[in-house]
C-alpha cells in the first residue's frame, strides 16, 4: 500500500461528507456527514503518521484519538441542540428553523 491509497480513500470520504452536509435537509443526516468528514481527517492523521514520520513516532495516532474524543463531545452537544429544537419547532429540518432570519 502507498500513502496515496489512504489519501484517496480519505478524499472520497471527505467529499461525500461535504455532499451530505450541503444537500440533506435533516439535521441528523447533516451530523452523519460531519462524522464522515471527521473520520476522513483522522484517517489522514494516521496515514501521515505511518508514512511520513519514523515508524516509532506515533504522535499522529494520538492526534487522531483526540479527534475521536472531540467528535464524541460534538455529537453529544449536537444531539442535545437537535432535541431542544425539536421541542421548540416540532421539526428538525434546518430550513424551517429560521427565527433569527432577518
Amino acid at each position: 500500500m502507498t500513502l496515496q491509497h489512504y489519501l484517496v480513500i480519505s478524499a472520497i470520504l471527505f467529499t461525500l461528507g461535504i455532499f451530505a452536509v450541503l444537500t440533506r435537509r435533516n439535521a441528523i443526516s447533516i451530523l452523519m456527514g460531519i462524522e464522515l468528514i471527521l473520520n476522513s481527517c483522522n484517517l489522514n492523521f494516521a496515514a501521515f503518521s505511518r508514512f511520513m514520520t519514523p515508524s516509532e513516532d506515533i504522535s499522529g495516532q494520538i492526534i487522531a484519538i483526540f479527534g475521536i474524543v472531540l467528535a464524541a463531545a460534538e455529537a453529544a452537544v449536537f444531539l442535545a441542540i437537535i432535541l431542544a429544537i425539536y421541542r421548540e419547532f416540532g421539526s428538525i429540518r434546518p430550513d424551517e428553523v429560521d427565527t433569527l432570519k432577518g
Partner: protein
Amino acid sequence: MDFTLTNFIFYGFALMTVGSALLVVTVRNIVHAAFSLMVTLFGVAGLYVFLQADFLAATQVIVYVGGILVLILFGVMMTSGRLEMRIHIERGQLLLGGVVALALLTLLLTVIANTPAWKNLTDDGTELPPTTEKIGELILNGPFLLPFEVVSVLLLVALIGAALISRKEVRD
C-alpha cells in the same frame, strides 16, 4: 501490482468504506443511513489496522460504533415521526451540491497525485509492537499530558452543556 491476500483484504476494506459512505449520503431512509454509517466506521477501523494503529482501531469501534452511532439512533427515534424517516432533498440543491462535491474531489485528487513528497511512499511492512503502552506513556507521562487534561475538561463541559440544553424546562 500483485494480488496478495493482504492487498485483497485492503481493497475489500477500502470498497466497504467508500461504498457504505456513498449509501450514507444517498439513501432516503434515515435509519438505513445510520446503519450504513456503522459499516463505514468499521471499514475505517479496518484501515487503521492496516496502518498498524491497533489502539486507534479499537477506540474507533468502541467510541464511534458503540457511542456516537447509538446517540445518532437515539436522536432519530426521539425526533422523527413516521413521516420524517424519509429525508427530504431538493432537486436544485442536489445538483448544486453534486457540482461542488465533484469540484472538491477533483481538486483533492489532483493535489494528491501531484505532490512530490507524497509519491512512492510504500508501506515497508515493518511490524510495530502494540501501540497501547507507548500511547499511555506519551499521554500520561509525556508531551501530550496538557492536551489530555484540556480534553478531559472539554468533555466534562460538553456533557454538562448537553444535559442542560436537552432537559425539560421547569417553570415555577
